[in-house]
């Protein structure tokens, strides 16, 4: 095939990814690759468009790094979060970045690249372990909160009338509170009940501990961690209910919805098979942008002393504890703050770029730009020759 674009390494990587994914699906569905050539071409163009947007690439990079550490962080951390070197060797107390501390009980030297906190714990290890906390919380909040909002928004928008009034007025009640204040109130009220609940379900408890990469000893602190999650789910769905309802209202005016009713489809089939896929694009972009906001809010709540308690590693909590020793132990605030900022920035850049490349119109304009530069370069080449 004649090459239309000037391909860089990333474009070749994109080619490879698309072909690999296609071949993978082909294993399960016979002739899938042959039948879906145009779909694969479309994926390829999407990735090319992404490759031509530097902020997008930065976003993808930051998010991939975050996900990587979110999954493997606690394993990669050189020191466990619940080991307190301060009791071994007093010099570990608030040791500045680059210090080496000898630990008699381990008969080894601990290198504190990013410094230590007031327990003498290695900040780098804490940040790595904290990645898991942020990662799990953001995923759980999005996975549980967003579908709830989408479901209610679809129902309100599709049925209209009294149902709409009821659902949306409840949504308005939630939106009327500032999200952070409501989350603070909820996460202050909920911990005891959640603690009682989780303590009485041993399997669930060990699953949650495993999910966060925590030691059994932290079982007593789970209630506070879960209360933050629940509080954030409760403040998170109303925004989605509202945008889904809005899109549903526009979408259901389309004739194909009436046509679907006229062939006898049930309301649920129409909602989930015909309306939802047509409005999911903007919602997906919103979700990506929201990952950043969830992480920010979670950090904010732990900064206020809600949620995870020491020794559980949590970025917001590290900053909160660090404020007591500021400005002497500046690293306890600067580094976790920087990490939170980079992650939130990454999700935001990714979301912005997704909006561009998921929309066929803007994707085409990027494509044209690429083709044009390619042509101009060819022309120059001819002139030079």
């Amino acid at each position, binding site marked *: 095939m004649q090459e239309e674009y000037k391909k860089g390494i990333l474009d070749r990587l994109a080619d490879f990814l698309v072909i690999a994914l296609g071949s993978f699906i082909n294993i399960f569905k016979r002739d899938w690759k042959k*039948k879906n050539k145009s779909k694969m071409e479309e994926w390829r163009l999407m990735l090319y468009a992404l490759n031509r947007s530097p902020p997008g690439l930065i976003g993808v990079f930051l998010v991939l790094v975050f996900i990587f550490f979110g999954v493997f962080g606690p394993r990669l951390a050189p020191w466990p979060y619940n080991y307190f070197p301060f009791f071994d060797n007093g010099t570990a107390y608030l040791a500045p970045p680059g210090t080496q501390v000898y630990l008699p009980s381990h008969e080894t030297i601990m290198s504190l690249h990013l410094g230590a906190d007031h327990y003498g714990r290695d900040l780098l290890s804490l940040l790595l372990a904290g990645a898991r906390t942020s990662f799990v919380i953001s995923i759980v909040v999005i996975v549980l909160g967003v579908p709830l909002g989408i479901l209610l928004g679809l129902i309100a928008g599709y*049925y*209209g*009338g009294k149902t709409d009034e009821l659902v949306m007025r409840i949504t308005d009640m939630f939106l009327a509170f500032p999200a952070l204040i409501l989350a603070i109130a909820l996460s202050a009220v909920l911990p005891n009940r959640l603690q009682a609940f989780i303590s009485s379900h041993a399997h669930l408890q060990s699953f949650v501990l495993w999910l966060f990469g925590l030691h059994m000893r932290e079982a007593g602190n789970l209630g506070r961690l879960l209360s933050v999650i629940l509080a954030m789910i409760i403040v998170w769905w109303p925004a989605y209910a509202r945008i889904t309802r809005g899109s549903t209202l526009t979408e259901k005016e*389309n*004739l*194909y919805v*009436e*046509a*679907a*009713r*006229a*062939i*006898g*489809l*049930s309301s649920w*089939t129409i909602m989930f098979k*015909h309306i939802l*896929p*047509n409005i999911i694009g903007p919602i997906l972009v919103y979700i990506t942008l929201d990952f950043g906001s969830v992480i920010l809010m979670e950090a904010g709540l732990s900064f206020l002393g809600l949620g995870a308690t020491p020794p559980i590693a949590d970025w917001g909590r590290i900053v909160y504890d660090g404020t007591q020793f500021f400005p002497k132990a500046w690293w306890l605030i600067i580094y976790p703050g920087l990490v939170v900022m980079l992650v939130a920035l990454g999700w935001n850049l990714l979301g912005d770029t997704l909006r561009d490349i998921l929309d066929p119109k803007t994707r085409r304009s990027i494509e044209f730009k690429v083709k044009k530069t390619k042509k101009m370069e060819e022309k120059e080449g001819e002139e030079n020759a």
Partner: protein
Amino acid sequence: MRRMPEPILEVRDLTVHFYTYAGIVKAIERVSFDVYKGETFALVGETGCGKSVTSRALTQLIESPGRIVGGKVIYHSDKGPIDLLKLREEEIREIRGKEIAYIFQDPHASLDPLYQVGYQIAEAMVVHNTVKDLKEGLQRALSILKRVLIPDPESRIKNYPHEMSGGMKQRVVIGTGLTNNPKVLIADEPTTALDVTVQAQILDLMNKLKRDYNTTLILITHNMGVVAEMADRIAVMYAGKIAEIGTAEQIFKNPLHPYTQGLLKAVPNPMKRIERLDAIPGTVPNLITPPSGCRFHPRCPFAKDICKQKVPELKEIEDGHFVACHLY
């Protein structure tokens, strides 16, 4: 000798109101007519007179803020007569698409852009269990595409709606309507969004399919040319009420209602020679506060005092020719 045709739909006093912020829009008021088995029945009238609302009300397809306020729609199914307006949502769903199918005005909008056309045809069969699975549905969809004269159906079945032309899409929509071999097919301005040459093809196709499937066709249109070509019987609607019902011959040769007369003067009549086209003076009344008595009286050249006070009832003037007018 009056023949006694077998009715398939008997609509009695059908009334639909829309509850808007501006007030109650009386979209259709006590509409009554019969549709006979195997005929082509045309509902004619200008924009906003309630043709579409009437057709949608037949299977309760009226959406909030609209509501069917009263009336009866007796449908003579194989299992005996049913009042469609009394059925629950799950029961009427069984009727829609299977016994009574729709074709909508704009083929560009009546297909879901995200699904291949073959799937959309098959979906109509899968939902009514006329095929055992989607695979069989797709096979049937292929034969339906052939039936509606789509060239190269094997590759077209995989097309998305945006890959097809308007005429092609309307064929798909007609195909979707015919999938379950419905007893009644309601075509709501099926050719309005298409250009004239394609219109003729689509009308031919519908005529042919109607004969093949032995379907009763309810045709909704404001295009008198289409009516003259297709219809056996015609109902003329004005401002949410039936003005006149009769056979195509009666309506075109001997229009009784002043509105029908005006309508026929306003378009070239294929059955009558006229010198020039006239317009009906005035505009369609606001249906929130419709005129008292006969709703046409403010625009009627023959209006009398009684027209302002009393609502005219449908009267049979000649065999099968009804008119709602105080002149008769």
